[in-house]
């Protein structure tokens, strides 16, 4: 995966997709998905077991993999 910063339309400053903060991820999901996503919603995913790096940040690919596993498990 390209480690370059991702182009993020309307998400503010460029962020590292391999280490996003909760707020950055919420902003990214809101901008790309077209529906507002709150920090609390992302935090709820983390509380539900979404992978977090030791630094407390979120790797976008790991998070996508977790979501995919979750939707298949429903």
């Amino acid at each position, binding site marked *: 995966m390209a480690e370059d910063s991702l182009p*993020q339309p309307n998400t503010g400053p460029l962020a590292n997709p391999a280490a996003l903060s909760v707020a950055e991820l919420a902003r*990214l999901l809101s901008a790309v*998905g077209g529906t507002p996503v709150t920090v609390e919603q992302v935090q709820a*995913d983390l509380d539900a077991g979404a*992978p977090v790096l030791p630094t407390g940040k979120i790797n976008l690919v790991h998070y996508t993999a977790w979501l995919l596993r979750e939707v298949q498990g429903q």
Partner: protein
Amino acid sequence: MSKLDVRQLRVAELVRLLNSGPLGEVAQAHVVYRHLNSAGYRIGDGRKIDLLKYVAWLFHLRRTQSLPPGWTEANYEQHKEAVNARSRDLSESARDIAADGWVREPKDTERRSKAQASFRFFCEAYFSPTFHLAWSEDHLKVIGKIERAVLEGGLFAMAMPRGSGKTTLCETACLWSLLYGHHEFVALIGADEEHAADMLGSIKSELENNDLLDEDFSEVTGPVRALEGIHQRAAGQLYRGARTQVGWTAKEIVLPTIPGSVASGGIIKVSGITGRIRGMKYKRSDGNAVRPSLVLLDDPQTDESARSPSQCHTREQILAGAILGLAGPGMKMAGLMTLTVVRRWPSRSRWLVSSNCSCNGSAVRSRQGFGLPWP
């Protein structure tokens, strides 16, 4: 490895990328193909997938999957908010005791008024099961001293035989002082912490279970009874939408704040005489700190301490220093001490009766074995 453009990934590339993470194999090509068909151009150009759009789509898909049939994410959020608001309203109304009849008008206003200035009548009217026999002459003297200490101030000591009701009188005096607003803060001091805790337990029991008190002082006993023994409710209890601020802990009682009640916010704090007495105070929610204006000492000696001259000396020092200074600089402290003569202790009587003593106290000693009015 060649660089991947995460905004234009082939299905096989995306599957490999997702399976490379710490969760292991989570993606299968046919599932991603199904998502591609299902989401259409929302997650890519129809052939390649944009990882950012895909993660956002998965995020909403996961939430939609968990909704009841027929709900959308948006109206489900509204529904949740409405349910939460209803729960909050229900919780608030459950915490508000105003509608449940816990606080009522006094049943016998004449009885209540008469007991305001008469400690003896207060004992007889509201504690008749406890004080059910005729008073002895010595008890009437003691009751008179208590009345003076509470209403007019001053320092008094009373030597009484064991089992003569010293403790019960002290506990009842605490309630009398606070229920009528004679004092705002009463310190109840026992020989040790355990004794002090027992006295507070007894006062709590009266507030919770004494039906005679509840008839005329329901503005105090009602909120306490409404706790129904679950003292964690004290912090959230409301009366007509305002917190009652009732306090109910192992070391202190704060009487409920009810509009129009002279006992609102009255405090009883207990301690053993060798415990943390100095600087005893209570900080109210408005930031004001209040200090005791009345101290009741119930038998400050134990059998062990009475045999030790040094312990007697220590306790005398505490009496003269920390306890009489409880009211704060320049403030007068009213006090009453009941005690049992275990052995002769010259310094104690000197402290109490000497005309040169700064405490200006007075002492009463009742006869041993005098006909006691209760068993």
